[in-house]
């Protein structure tokens, strides 16, 4: 009798603990059930496939330009057998990439289409998260007949030479300047600096003549601004010296060079002569927004080294509406260090639509991408977001060129450079940010470069670095 009781107790205990173990699994099955039933119900009529599109929602939800765009494209999409479903990830820009990587890892969570920043595209491709599109692209006329600007294809080509996404926007970088402040300081309203010295000279003049409370020049210089510091500031400078981050010929990262020193010295000069913004403002995660949404529209900033997209803030429904920006702002090309050929430089980034390897509906996803990234909808998207286009036919369209600065920003793309298509780039980039912030806060360029050299060597290995 007693033994029987013990056995019961044992069985109950075992069952209880086992049921606990399976707690997670069973709930997951429950989640799946309604979907299955739905699919079965649908079978009697037509099977509607759901194509999920994942993109970053910066907190504005259904007001977001991408959400509205996806809805619009989906509404006119001729194939009514598929349902296009936006599945945004609400996250800061940095967290978005981590969350995407996690989602792409598993068949259960991977969407069918994902928006990828070209800077992380190569890493995600190396990780095997993305589907190479070369075979599919061969059969797409738009891709082969020159509708896409040829240089833009470089941004979506990974280190293995395969294409992993169709680009939908890009950007260029240059010197935004406030013409009113320039006028007050006696500087030309149509400003085209020929070298770094001329940029510095203009900043000094503004400091002297434009009065207190006006920041002569703003560049993102902190770790907190992440990729903006690497790309808009450091790489614009480094590539302007004629040097690069990565040597394609020998497949090595350049960790020690005169170009690095020159770029860092420029940053040092800005801070030593107090030509830049107060450090408490610029070493802050909000620095980019402070410059473009507050200082520039309020007339407290003369020159800003920033991306072509900042005008998106000034639209009527933007974050900081400023209708006068068309007349007040100028957009000058960033000169090379000494004015050497090609005279000016810009880095281009941008976003692409990719298909995850774990997607269940790759063919349907591809058909939708072709439809959405044709001329009509690409144009709508870049106009709504204030980005510049990757399509040559859109670039010529009056609807696009009539918007202020679009034509110049697209023009700068002629000399556009891309970040190295290397899977270690995101990690190296954080070392760049550390190095730039060190110089900004008073470390000498030589010391900062030495630390950068050590850190990059540790990340990529001794065999993959070189000095110049």
């Amino acid at each position: 009798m007693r033994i029987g009781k013990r056995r019961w107790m044992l069985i109950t205990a075992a069952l209880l603990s086992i049921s606990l173990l399976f707690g997670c699994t069973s709930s997951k099955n429950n989640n799946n059930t309604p979907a299955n039933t739905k699919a079965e119900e649908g079978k009697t009529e037509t099977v509607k496939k759901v194509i999920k599109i994942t993109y970053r929602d910066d907190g504005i939800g259904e007001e977001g330009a991408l959400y509205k765009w996806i809805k619009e494209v989906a509404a006119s999409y001729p194939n009514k057998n598929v349902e296009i479903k936006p599945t945004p990830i609400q996250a800061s820009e940095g967290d978005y990439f981590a969350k995407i990587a996690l989602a792409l890892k598993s068949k259960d969570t991977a969407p069918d289409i994902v928006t990828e920043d070209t800077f992380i595209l190569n890493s995600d491709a190396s990780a095997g998260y993305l589907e190479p599109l070369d075979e599919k692209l061969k059969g797409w006329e738009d891709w082969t007949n020159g509708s896409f600007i040829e240089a833009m294809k470089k941004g979506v080509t990974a280190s293995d030479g395969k294409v992993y996404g169709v680009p939908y926007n890009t950007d260029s970088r240059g010197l935004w300047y406030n013409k009113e402040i320039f006028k007050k300081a006696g500087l030309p309203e149509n400003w085209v600096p020929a070298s770094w010295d001329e940029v510095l000279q203009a900043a000094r003049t503004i400091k002297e003549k434009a009065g207190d409370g006006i920041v002569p020049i703003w560049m993102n210089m902190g770790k907190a601004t992440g990729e903006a510091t690497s790309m808009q500031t450091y790489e614009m400078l480094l590539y302007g010296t004629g040097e690069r981050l990565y040597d394609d010929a020998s497949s090595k990262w350049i960790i020690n060079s005169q170009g690095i020193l020159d770029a860092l010295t420029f940053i040092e000069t800005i801070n030593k002569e107090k030509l830049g913004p107060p450090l408490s403002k610029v070493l802050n995660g909000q620095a980019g927004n402070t410059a473009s949404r507050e200082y520039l529209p309020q007339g407290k900033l003369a020159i800003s080294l920033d991306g072509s997209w900042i005008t998106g803030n000034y639209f009527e429904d933007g974050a900081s509406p400023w209708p006068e920006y068309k007349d007040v702002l100028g957009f000058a090309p960033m000169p090379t260090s000494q004015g050497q050929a090609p005279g000016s430089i810009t880095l281009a980034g941008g976003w692409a639509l990719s298909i995850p390897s774990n997607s269940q509906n790759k063919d349907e996803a591809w058909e939708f991408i072709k439809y959405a990234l044709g001329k009509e909808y690409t144009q709508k998207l870049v106009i709504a977001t204030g980005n510049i286009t990757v399509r040559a036919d859109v670039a010529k369209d009056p609807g696009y060129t009539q918007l202020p600065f679009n034509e110049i920003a697209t023009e700068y793309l002629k000399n556009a450079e891309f970040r190295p298509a290397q899977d270690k780039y995101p990690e190296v980039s954080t070392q760049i940010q550390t190095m730039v912030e060190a110089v900004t806060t008073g470390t000498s360029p030589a010391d900062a470069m030495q630390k950068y050299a050590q850190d990059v060597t540790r990340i990529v290995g001794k065999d993959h670095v070189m000095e110049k």
Partner: protein
Amino acid sequence: MSSLAGNVLYKKRKTYTWLYFLIPSIAIMLVFFVYPILLTFFYSFTNLALTGEAAKELKFVGISNYVRMFEDPTVRVSIWNTLVFLIGSAVIGQQVLGFLIALLMKRKNKLFRRVVGTIVLAGWVTPEIVCALCLYSFFGDEGTLNAIVTSFGFTEVAWLFTVPMLTIILANIWHGTAFSMLVFQAALDDVPTEIEEAAVVDGASRWQVLTRITLPYIKDTITTNMMLVTLQTLGVFGLIYAMTGGGPGTSTTTLPIFMYNQAFVNYQLGYGTAISLLLLMIGVVLSLFYIRSMKE
């Protein structure tokens, strides 16, 4: 004879009965506590990454994550920052302030205790992220503190930039003092009033009563509280991340922030797990130290 054997059998049986009841909780502990730690331990010897070539295949890389950790100067800075934050905000700040508040509230009238208690508790019940945002707007450039400072005619100070460590220490004290206060309130209520009164009758000063009677009496509570507060503070992430993000530079980068940056900003999960084990080790060492000092 037979009754004796039955007795022994019964006793034996009795000794094991407790085990059955523990099986569910042991299973939970194994699955949700021991297994993840073992997994973390395992991953810390791999090149586990979120993206990039390494994400494709998991490779065993020996102790290279640990070698990298000891060569990385930022790790040393982070350990130092963690200790400064720990000692400043937990061991000294929360502990001493919590004790003082509890002591001053002792044997005061009910209304007073209730009002002061509620105010201090407000910091404790505020969720970490809300607390971080409150204090961010307090210390921010256009924040409350600067409004006060400028109204007295002084110039604005960029608090979060010039004294970042101090701001997060103060924030954590504001947030966590109530816990120590509650613990000490309970302990002080247990100190028999007769002994203290007897000491006063014998001519002891207030200071002597405090150091010779009250403190020795609640010694164990102090150590236990110290341990709890230490472990809580070691893991603080949201508060610092929201207020300073670990910056400017690395001046407020504590180990949890550094770990997050390595794992989710640099996508190096393997290295991140190695750092988390370092954090765990620091927690274990400190706990052992407290437990030993309790025994003495």
